[in-house]
C-alpha cells in the first residue's frame, strides 16, 4: 500500500485529469453517454473554474443536480437551471465560434486525434454498426477546443488507421485510463502517463507510434481536495459507470 496510485480508481484519475483541463470563463459542452465529462465539468466548476458555463443536451445552463444521473441526457440535469436552451442552440453556439470546449469520444481514435463512431469495416456494409458520432462531425471542427476521452486504451481503440472518419477537428487533449495525449502540429503526443503506468505499457496499448519514455511526465495524482470534491459531487460513483 505504499503506492498511492493503487488507491486511485482509473475513473477518478480520468475525471480529475479532465477537470484540470477546463478554465474559468469557458463554455463547456458534453453530449449523450458522457458520465466522465459530466463529473469532470462539475468538478472543475467547484474547484478552480467557478465561472465556467456548463452546457449539455438537456438544455440546462449551470445546473446544480442533487444526484447525478447515469444517462447524461436525463432531465435530472435540469435542476437549478435559470434558462432553457436547446441542443440546436448549442450547436449554433459552436458554429459561431463561441463554444470553448466540447467533450467527445471515439470507438477508434487515430494519431491525428480523428475519431470513428460510425462503423467497423466498410461503412456501407459494416461488420459492426456503431452508434454514430452524435454531434461530433459538426462540433469537432467548430468548437475551440475538443477534449476526447476514452475509457479503453488498447490497440483496437488507438489505431493507425480509422475504418471511417466520423469527425476531425480541433482536438486539444485525449484523456485515457493510462495517460493524456496533447495534440501538437496535428499529431497526438504523450503529455503525461498516469501514476503507475510504464512507458512500455502505454506504447503497447497504443496502435500508432508514440514517443514515450522514462522522461515522460507523470500526471499528478488527484489531490485530497480534488478527491473530496469529487465525492461530494458524485457520492454514488456515477463516474465509474463507463467502466462497467
Amino acid at each position, binding site marked *: 500500500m505504499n503506492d498511492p496510485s493503487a488507491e486511485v480508481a482509473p475513473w477518478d484519475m480520468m475525471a480529475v485529469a479532465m477537470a484540470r483541463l477546463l478554465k474559468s470563463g469557458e463554455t463547456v459542452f458534453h453530449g449523450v453517454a458522457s458520465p466522465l465529462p459530466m463529473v469532470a465539468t462539475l468538478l472543475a466548476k467547484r474547484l478552480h473554474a467557478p465561472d465556467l458555463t456548463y452546457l449539455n443536451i438537456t438544455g440546462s445552463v449551470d445546473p446544480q443536480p442533487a444526484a447525478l444521473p447515469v*444517462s447524461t441526457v436525463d432531465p435530472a440535469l435540469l435542476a437549478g437551471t435559470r434558462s*432553457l436552451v436547446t441542443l440546436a442552440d448549442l450547436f449554433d453556439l459552436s458554429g459561431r465560434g463561441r463554444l470553448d470546449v466540447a467533450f467527445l469520444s471515439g470507438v477508434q481514435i487515430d494519431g491525428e486525434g480523428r475519431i470513428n463512431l460510425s462503423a467497423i469495416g466498410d461503412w456501407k456494409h459494416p461488420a459492426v454498426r456503431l452508434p454514430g458520432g452524435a*454531434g461530433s462531425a*459538426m462540433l469537432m471542427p467548430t468548437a475551440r477546443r475538443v477534449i476526447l476521452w476514452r475509457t479503453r486504451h488498447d490497440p483496437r481503440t488507438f489505431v493507425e488507421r480509422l475504418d471511417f472518419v466520423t469527425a476531425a477537428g480541433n482536438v486539444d487533449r485525449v484523456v485515457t485510463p493510462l495517460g493524456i495525449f496533447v495534440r501538437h502540429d496535428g499529431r497526438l503526443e504523450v503529455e503525461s502517463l498516469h501514476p503507475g503506468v510504464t512507458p512500455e505499457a502505454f506504447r503497447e496499448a497504443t496502435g500508432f507510434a508514440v514517443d514515450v519514455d522514462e522522461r515522460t511526465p507523470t500526471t499528478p495524482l488527484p489531490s485530497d481536495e480534488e478527491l473530496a470534491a469529487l465525492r461530494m459531487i458524485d457520492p454514488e460513483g456515477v463516474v465509474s459507470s463507463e467502466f462497467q
Partner: protein
Amino acid sequence: MIDKTTTLTEAISAIPDGARIALGGNTLHRGPGAAVHELVRQGKRNLELVKTAGAYDVDLLCAAGCVAAVSAGFIGYETPFGMAPAYRKAVESGRVQAREHACATVIAGLRAAIQGAPFMPVAGLQGSDLPAARGFRTVRDPYSGVEVYVVPALVPDAAILHVQEADATGNGRIIGTRFEDVLMAQAARRVILTAERIVDGEAFADAPETVAIAGFLVDAVVEAPGGAWPFSCTPLYEYDTDYLAAWVSAARDPDTADRFIAERILDPAAAVA
C-alpha cells in the same frame, strides 16, 4: 375550437407504410413509447425514422421489421445499456439503411423543412467522411466565396411526440427538456401528440411559455397515461431499467427478440401501455 382527440389506434392508422417519421424525445427520455408499440402492433413497414439520438424506439422498430432506414446522429442506450443490438444487426444484415447524420445535420435538415428552404447550411463537417458517404454537398457563398456544407431539407411525413399535458386542440405542454420536439412539430406534414393527460387548455393561457407545441400545428391528440414508457417522462416517471435491460438482452438474438415482442407487445393481455 377543433377537437382533435382520438384513439391511439386511429392516430397511428393514419400513417402509411413507407412514411418518414420523426420521433420525439432523446435516447432514454420522453420518447413516444405507446405510439411506437402501436406502430409495431399495426405492422407498419418500410418506415424511415428521424431522430437526433434514438434508443429503444429505433431498436424495437428495427427488430419488428417496421423500418427501411434510420436518419439519426446516434442510436444507442447510453451507458446503462450500451449499443442498440437490433438496430445494429438490422444495419449489418442490410435490412435497414443507416442514413447516418451528425445530430446537427438532422437539425439542419429539419430547419430547412421548417423554413421552406431546399437546403440548410451547416457549420463544421470538415475532415469527416460523412459528407462523401451521405452525399452532403457544399455550395459556395456568393458573398464571400467560402464553401459551406449544406444539408437537404428533411421533411417528416409525421412527427410523433409525447408530452406531459395537452388540450383537445393540440396545444402541448412539455415539462423540462424539449429536445428536438418543437422542430419536429414544425417540420412535419402531420403531427400526432400523445399526452399523459388531456386538460382544459384555458390554464395554458396563464403560462403560454410552457406550451412548447402550438395547437394549430397538431393533427391528432391522444390521451396516453404512461405513454412514454419505457422512456422516462419527467417528473412523472423514470425510464424502466428492468424492462429495458430485459429488452436489450432479448434483442441480441432475432428469435428471442421476436418472442419478446410477441409476448410483451403484441399479446393484448400484456398490453404494455
